[in-house]
């Protein structure tokens, strides 16, 4: 095994050009995939922060006693998907309406009595947004005897959730296209490299080397290249990320601080993937050139 590693390192030294090119192409592929990942992860974050804004308003029947309110609250709270249920008295509701109406709020001045009902404002858990599930939840709450009516931006949520789904779908589609493209690029690059070393492989076979003896250093090399490619690709992305986030943040005064980099765990996964793809490319190429 040590011998194999030694031979692999020796190969890397003697085939510097081939190794450099392979590592460059691997880095670029990793850069592409991880850039896309970074983009969709952050967009996802951003959309999640929007999702937190989705609320269900449950209006209480007018004759509910104040002592019951805590009970109702608890009943709502235990429902699946509910993050928080906040009581909002009719006075609060009127205040908000005034605010919302702005210049038309003078309209409300003519009222003698507050005709608005008491209500619960229900925030949903983050994983929840899905129009059917929200609808189910709304129906459930509406079936409580104390609840008069339930309101939620059915149309708006529907549209939003669909946009979100579309975006996610696009994200999946693009990620898989890009991932596959990267895998093919790397695998083909390794095929090219091994093609240009096929004479060497042939000679080794002729002097009695077993397939395993020939293959192992290639695999070791490819996995090392994959690791280096992954690390360099991620480093390049990180550099770009740092550059953009320090230079752009001020200009936009937009909350770019919220833009986060790939987690360590995800970075590790990417590097492992890159190593695996190196191995895979090697596997395909060696099958091709050893069979000949």
């Amino acid at each position, binding site marked *: 095994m040590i011998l194999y590693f030694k031979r692999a390192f020796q190969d890397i030294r003697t*085939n510097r050009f081939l190794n450099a090119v392979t590592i460059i192409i691997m880095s670029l592929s990793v850069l592409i995939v991880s850039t896309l990942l970074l983009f969709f992860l952050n967009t996802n974050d951003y959309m999640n922060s929007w999702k937190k804004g989705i609320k269900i308003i449950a209006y209480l029947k007018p004759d509910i006693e104040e002592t019951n309110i805590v009970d109702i609250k608890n009943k709502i709270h235990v429902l699946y998907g509910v993050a928080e249920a906040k009581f909002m008295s009719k006075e609060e509701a009127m205040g908000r309406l005034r605010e919302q109406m702005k210049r038309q709020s003078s309209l409300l001045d003519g009222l003698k009595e507050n005709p608005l009902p008491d209500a619960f404002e229900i925030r949903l858990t983050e994983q929840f947004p899905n129009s059917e599930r929200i609808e189910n939840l709304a129906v459930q709450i509406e079936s409580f005897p104390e609840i008069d009516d339930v309101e939620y931006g059915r149309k708006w949520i529907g549209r939003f959730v669909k946009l979100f789904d579309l975006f996610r779908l696009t994200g999946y589609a693009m990620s898989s296209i890009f991932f596959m493209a990267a895998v093919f690029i790397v695998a083909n690059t390794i095929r090219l490299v091994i093609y240009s070393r096929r*004479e*060497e492989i042939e000679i*080794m076979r002729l002097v*009695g080397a077993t*397939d395993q003896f020939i293959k192992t250093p290639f695999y070791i090399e490819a996995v090392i290249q994959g690791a280096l490619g992954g690390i360099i690709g991620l480093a390049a992305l990180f550099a770009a990320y740092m550059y953009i986030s320090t230079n752009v943040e001020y200009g936009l005064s937009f909350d770019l601080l919220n833009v986060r980099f790939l987690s360590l765990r995800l970075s590790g996964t990417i590097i492992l993937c890159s190593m695996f793809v190196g191995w895979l490319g090697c596997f395909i190429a060696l099958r091709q050139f050893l069979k000949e």
Partner: protein
Amino acid sequence: MIDENDKSATIRMFHVHKNYGSKQALININLDVSKNEFLFITGPSGAGKSTLLKLLYLGEPVSEGQILIDGMNLSRISRKRIPLLRRKLGIIFQDYKLIPTRTVFDNVALVLEAMGKKRQFIQKKVNSVLRMVGMEKRFNAMPQSLSGGEQQRIAVARAVIGMPKIILADEPTGSLDTESASAVFDLLKEFHTRGATLLVATHDQELIRKTGRKAIYLKEGRQTK
């Protein structure tokens, strides 16, 4: 028909034909090479000398007929066991087949590494073999930086380092001056006296005459003598 247990002959060829497409490179070759024989294969350019050797190391499959080496039937050898066959053979290729990206030392050491020998043993052995072909000072050179004859000597060194039972040599002294050539031949003869079987392909009638060994003569793929 074929007695696989007849060990008196190391190499046996029965009615062997080899076609490359429509080109008949070897036609009905029958050959018995007994253990420790020293046999020349001769004939003009394109006669099929290299092809004959190629069939023996399974560089190409036969088109027809059978070949036995040390009792192994070559057409029944599985892919996985080909390396075991080749380790019994020491092959000097006509075009040397040195790995261009490795040093002289690594090219020669390769054979022993593939056999799984120890590092120290390899080091010693390679040095001694390089000394035998007069290339001990160039162990760190790359093959392209060697002269034609020097490359050939490295090829010879690589062929003999594994102490093969059978040496297949294709024009082993074609690029060598008389002096270097006889040094190489002395080396081959030494392996012969130690028990190896030698098959040497050459177009050089002079060489055969001088050595006074048996030769078979090929012409356009046919065995004529």
